[in-house]
Each structure stands twice: as C-alpha cells, then as structure tokens.
C-alpha cells in the first residue's frame, strides 16, 4: 500500500504539468483580445494593448509563453492580474473560504444523502420512499438560484436567523446555509445512489448468510450491507469535492462569498490566463488527492480489492 501511495503521489508531477499546460492553452484559445474590453465602450489606445500584450508575453508563441509561466511558477511567483494584484494574494484569500464551504456542503450531502438512502432502502417501497423521491426530484428541478434566494430571504431577511450575505472572513456558522444550498443537488443524487446500492446488496448471499448466522440486524446492515454499498457513493463524494470547490459560482454569488468559483469564472471571462491557470492547477491537485483518498478507501471497504 505504501508503495502504491508513493507511486500515486509521483504521478502528481506529470499531471500537474499536463494540467497547467492544458489550462494555459485553453485560456489562450479563447477568441478575442483580452485587453480590448478593458477600457469600456471607448475602446483602448493601441499603445496600451500592445504594452499589456508584451507584459503578459502574449505576443510570443504558446510553448514559449508556457515555459516562461512555468519558470515563474517554480520560483514561487504566481504572477499578477491585469489590475496589478498578485495572484498568490487572491489564492490566499479565496482558498480557505472555499475549502470551508465545500467541506460543509460535503458533510451535508453525505450525512443527509446516505441517511435518506439507507432509510428508503430498508423501508422498501412505500411512503418514505416516495417522499424521498419527490424531494429528490424537487432538488433536481429547482435551480440553485431559486433555492439559494429562498433560503436567503426566509432565514436571512425575514427570520433574521442568518446574515443575508457572508462577510469577507466567514465563520463556519455563516457558511452553514450556503453549504446546504450548495450540497443540495448532490444530496439528491447520493440518496438515490445509496438506495440503489443497498437494494442490490439487500438480497446478496452474504447478507443471507450473515442473518442466518444470527447476527443482529443492526450489525448486518451497518457492517455488511452498508460497507459493500458505499463504494460507488464514496467515489461520487470524492469527485464531488472538487466540483463543489470550483463550481460554486451561483451559490457564492447569492451569498456574496469571495471564493474561487467566482474568481475563476471572472478570470475566464476577462481571459486572465495567469489567474485561471494558478487557481485551477491547485484545484486539480485537490482532485488528485481526493481521488487518491477514495481509491485507498476502496481497499479499506472491500478487502478483496488490492493494490500492488
């Protein structure tokens, strides 16, 4: 196992380089001049565009630009945005908030989703199952801008339980409501996934064996059934963490959280390659680590799975 983990960590290096290159070239491939829109409807003087183009090496061929960027990165410099802000400052400000938010969302979706899934699977078809199905459909169909808005207005403006928006250095408590909104869609999915997996395993022979052996039902469910049903669920939760970090654009907007979702979104729109590449590369590292964790969990959940 130790060697497996080491090998996976070593794989980070080529993936890191690959990702930075892909992201960098993608931003580069967005049509249009990134500086043309900076001066409003009046348009920019050619001298301004030319100098900015030189400053960000955009006049050089793509591979040269990329190597220059990578060299800068290895000396610990993430570069500067078009308005002269250090990208490292932005990362420092945005990452902790986003990490907190995504973790809260993840906890919500995992706890509520798995609980609802187990409940429906054990109760079988009937009222509870239909109720969870209805809730699931509701969460799928109601866009985040609506659920976020409703929670904000009801709990923030009318009941005054929470602040309508989140400050610049939010506490865990302030992020509860946004985290719930952010995790809601995945919650629906986890509930259904758990339910299906439990159904599959419910009639498996080993469950029958375990029950026949005289194990307590509680032990059968929690040790045998749940453990075997969780593999696909854990997989999804692992992949979702990164998605929650980078894709929280709407939730961040509704609650005015200054996280990386909005940061990347704005940077893409203004074609700020340096910001996009820096922030997204770190995001990919998170994905890689999460997936590594998930792969290790497989082995823990199912002893038949071995890595060597």
């Amino acid at each position, binding site marked *: 196992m130790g060697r497996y983990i080491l090998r996976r960590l070593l794989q980070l290096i080529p993936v890191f380089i690959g990702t930075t290159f892909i992201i960098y070239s993608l931003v580069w491939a967005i*049509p249009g001049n990134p500086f043309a829109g900076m001066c409003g409807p009046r348009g920019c003087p050619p001298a301004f565009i030319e100098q900015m183009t030189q400053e960000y090496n955009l006049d050089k061929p793509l591979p040269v630009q990329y190597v220059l960027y990578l060299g800068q990165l290895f000396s610990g410099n993430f570069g500067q945005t078009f308005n002269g802000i250090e990208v490292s400052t932005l990362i420092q400000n945005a990452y902790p908030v986003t990490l907190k938010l995504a973790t809260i969302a993840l906890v919500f979706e995992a706890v509520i989703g798995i609980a609802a899934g187990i409940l429906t699977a054990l109760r079988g078809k009937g009222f509870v199952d239909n109720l969870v199905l209805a809730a699931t459909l509701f969460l799928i169909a109601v866009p985040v801008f*609506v659920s976020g808005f409703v929670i904000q207005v009801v709990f923030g403006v009318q009941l005054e339980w929470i602040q309508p928006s989140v400050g610049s250095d939010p506490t865990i408590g302030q992020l509860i409501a946004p985290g719930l909104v952010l995790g809601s869609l995945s919650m629906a999915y986890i509930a259904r996934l758990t339910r299906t997996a439990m159904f*599959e395993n419910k009639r498996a022979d080993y469950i029958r064996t375990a029950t026949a052996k005289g194990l307590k039902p509680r032990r059968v469910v929690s040790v045998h059934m749940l453990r075997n049903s969780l593999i696909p669920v854990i997989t999804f939760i692992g992949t979702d963490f990164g998605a929650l970090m980078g894709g929280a654009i709407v939730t961040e907007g509704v609650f005015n959280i200054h996280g990386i979702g909005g940061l990347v979104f704005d940077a893409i729109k203004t074609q700020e390659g340096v910001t996009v590449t820096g922030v997204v590369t770190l995001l990919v590292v998170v994905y890689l680590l999460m997936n590594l964790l998930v792969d290790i969990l497989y082995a823990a959940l199912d002893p038949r799975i071995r890595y060597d």
Partner: protein
Amino acid sequence: MTNAGEGQQRILAAGAYAEGEIEARQQGESGDELPGTPEPHQPPKQEKQRGLWGDAWLELRRKPLFIIGSVIILLLVAISIFPGFFAPGDPNAQNLTLARQGPSADAPFGYDSIGRDIYTRVIHGARASIVVGVLATLLTVAIGSLVGLFAGYFGGKTDSFLARFAEIFLGLPFVLGAIVILSVFNAGIQGAPGTIRIMLQVILTIGVLAWPISMRIMRSAAIAAKQQDYVNAAKALGASHTRIIFKHVLPNCLAPVMVYATIALGQFVGLEATLSYLGLGLQYPVVSWGMMISDSQQYIISTPHMLLFPAGFLVITVLAFVMLGDAVRDALDPKQR
C-alpha cells in the same frame, strides 16, 4: 461474507446470455429505454423459458410504474415532434401590454416578462430540452462507462493513465472548457450558427466535459466486480477480455451509473440554459425549458409562474425517466422478483 454461491450461479448460466438477449429484442423494445442496453444480469439457472429479457418484458407490462413512465415519455416525444399540434400559437409572439400576467382562460400558464404565452413556449421548448438532455446524458454515460470499465478492469498502468486523464478533465472548469470548445466550433461563422448545429455542439461539449464523473463511478464498480469469483471463473474458462468486460463485468456495474444518468438528465437541461445564458448555447428565437427557467431568475417573487411551469415540465420528464429506470432495473434483477 462469502460470494462463492453467487459466483457459481453465474458461471453455470453463462451459456444462456446470448440466447436470452436475442429473444428479448424480438419481444419488444423495452431494453432500448435503458442507457447501456445489454444487461443480462443474473440469468435464470435453467436455460429454456423466455430468457432474461423476455421475463423482464412480461414483468414490466404488469408494472404501473413502467406504464406511467412510458406513457409520459411517449407524450413528451409526441410534443417534441409536433409542438404545433399541442400549441398552435407562435412561441415568440410578444405582447408587451400583457407582460407578467398570471394564468387565465386565454393563457392557461400566463405570460412571461415580455408578454409571451408561457404555455406555447413550454410546448415548443420541449424539443430542444429533451433532445439536449437525453442525448447529452447518453453520450456522457457512454464515454464515461467505457473508459471507466477499461480503467477499472485492467487496472495498473491503463488505470493510472485513464484515471489521471479523467482527473485533469474533472479539474477543468466547465465554463472555460465550454467557452473554448464552443468558440472554436463557432469560429469562422458569421453571426449566429444554425440551431441543429448549436444543439449538436452543446451535446458534444457536455459529453466531453462531464464524462469523468460517470467514469469514476463505473471504474469503482468495475474494480469491485473484477475481483468477484465469477470473473475469475470466466477467466479460467478462457473467456476473452472483451467477453468478460461486456458480458460479466458491465452488467454488474450498470446500476450506479444508471442512477447518475437520471439525475444528470435534469442537470444537463439546466446546463444547456447556463450555456445559452453565457452566450454559448441556443439563442433566441429557439425556445428551451432551461432558458425559460433561467429567464425567470429575476422574477421569482413578482412572477412565479414564469418558473413554475417550465420547471414543472422538467420535473415530470425526470420523474418519467426515473420511474422507467427503476422499473426496468427491478425487472431485470431476478433477486427482486
């Protein structure tokens, strides 16, 4: 915790797969509703009878869940093909004086923010939404499952490569990928490209960017499945990799991916709207539910019916697919009979 019994059953029945499948095709179309058709799951012990698919079909015909689901889907398909029959009006005709008026005898669903009839728009919007939703889901699941299956089954270097490749895609912000892919497609076209072309582009973009999730799910299921005794037994019997993957591993891995597919369907309808909102997807005069929902964003309080009706249709569509998926899966699983 032994799986020996289950494994043996499967090996014994290995010969029955092909036959059962052919028969099912002759019997009916039920299997085609499923993303990823061949599912000879848990075949019966004795080969004769109708085979798995035949059994499933008989079973399905009696299930109200299946009947309701298919009727809704057929109706939606009919609406998509002949919207004019269900709503003869012009979905883009606007009468500003009627803006935001609620449901009435003249307009059962009311009017939107610039005075267009919501009923007509919902009916005419079905086509784009259903086509994009269903095809994008199929594409995503197809790519993801295939790659995941290979990665999970072969493991080792193949897995490392495919899994890391998928991780890069996962890390790619959807908006960035979409902007680049769609603008590269659209480059060189003066003005706005044609509707069918944009629809295909949107489907392709979603497929290219969203497959890693179903890949990870399929991969995890494949990793678990390949260690099962029946796979080892099939190997011992000299079955080829292709045969093992498609006949033994795939059928046992489909369930979680199918659940993902039904949820993703709803999500992709919304994603189409996000793209058009960003100026990358379908544009006026085309109508879609996603666009209607996203247009309603500013009017949730003052004009809730702008959101209610298109979102309602979306719920019904997803519900129909969920029902159908559940019914088919149950019918195919002999343990649940």
